[in-house]
């Protein structure tokens, strides 16, 4: 399943074995929030799903993109799951680093939750 939002963000979702992989291409910004949420909803993944956002196809993101990712993080948590980010590189990795969210979006250790988060 794939969609393209107005700002040119491509969203592909795939569910397998408790993990929902959301692969993004293009640019993540403030306009991406609705599309991202819709894609996560429509995947009908079960309670407790681990969401992995793959950013390897994203070349540009600013702080509004960080906010979009944080809203997805909250959505995943509200459904008893977790969210992590993979494949960030270049500007995107730098923006994640500068926003202080790298640790937050790191994959949880196998079989455990991160300390300090509820």
């Amino acid at each position, binding site marked *: 399943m794939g969609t393209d939002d107005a700002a040119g963000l491509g969203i592909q979702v795939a569910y397998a074995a408790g993990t929902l992989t959301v692969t993004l291409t293009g640019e993540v910004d*403030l306009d991406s929030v609705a599309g991202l949420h819709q894609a996560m909803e429509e995947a009908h993944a079960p309670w407790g799903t681990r969401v992995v956002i793959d950013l390897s196809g994203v070349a540009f993101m*600013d*702080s*509004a993109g*960080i*906010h979009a990712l*944080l809203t997805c993080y*909250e959505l995943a*948590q509200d459904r008893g799951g977790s969210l992590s980010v993979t494949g960030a590189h270049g500007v995107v990795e730098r923006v994640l*680093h*500068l*926003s*202080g*969210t790298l640790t*937050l979006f790191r994959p949880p250790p196998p079989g455990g939750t991160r300390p*300090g*988060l*509820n």
Partner: protein
Amino acid sequence: MTGMEDSAFAAAVKRLLDQGPAGGPEQLADLVRRTAQAMGLNSAVVFLADLQQRDLVPLPGSRDNDGMWSRPLGIEDTLAGRAYRTTATQSSQDGPAVLWLPLVDGRTRIGVMRAEADEATAEVVDWCRALASATALLVASQATHSDELIRLTRSRPMRVAAEMVWAFLPPTTIGNGRVTSTGLLEPAYQVAGDAFDHALTSDTLHLTLVDAMGHDLASGQSSAVALAGCRATRRAGGSLAEIVTDVDKELAEWVPGRMLTGIFADLDLATGTLEWINCGHPPPLLLRGHHIVSGALERTPVLPLGLGPRYPREHTSHRFALRPGDRILLHTDGLTEARSPAGEIFGDQRLADFVTRAASSGESAQETARRLLHAILDYHQHQLRDDAALLIAEWHPGS
């Protein structure tokens, strides 16, 4: 010159200070001219810088013995502009002596005064400086309540969010013998989410720069709450950590669903120790000598503010020892990350090059800030998609 007595000079300035606050800008123009004439000058005309500091606009009804002054003068390319840019008196002798004197409110440039005399003796220059100082005070006092004066410095209507942000801003330049701090914002008439604050105590300079997500009234609200929260805690004697904690709480409660990045810093004016907390914001830059010291102030930031109680809140502060003459530059990502119509970003390197060139030319921090924001606007062909804010502080003990 006239050989006017000091007592007559004092009487003229006293009359100016007594009568100045009562009228509007037109009365002020008239009063300054008459005061100048009472001092034995031929004339004096007051010009104010527009909001974006591109032009010097004469007060309405300005005139000298040769006629009216109604056209703005460019800051970039006139002698008047040179007086403004350098904050130093400029003179020309083409017939009568003409002096262009900077008008400065505290440390913030607000315009220039053109004074004309038969001869520019040292005494006349001194009197003109005194007249310029008194005039600057009167302009600053009218600016707090005169819409005519505000209108004069604007070239177009301002968005509501921008009106709110500007109302919250401190004077753009502050300082004392040990430190100078200057801040600026663009696009001036449309800003919504970026804001800065700076304030002095006898031993500390406090710096705050924030970037609220989005470009609407709620963004302006978010940065206004951050500035107000910061001030309330700071003025009650709170630490940086307490400021961050309080601002985070207020934002989450009153502007939910939004986030704000920012840097909160204190500079110890005696020792030069900079202490700061970075909440998801681009790192401060250190400008030492003529160069940006790459990564000198880059530390792992804590999370942006206003995210709410589900996120872990830390307030780790960092410290760095400045050397005399060092400059700190805080900026929002709109300055470096925003893209030109062709899709290219201004970038850290261009910023570094610009600041380095400015430093080596020896210009003041406020002039660097003014020119840098113009460069950004020009680069984006005046179509900034994001706010760009800048705060430059220079530690110059013993200067």
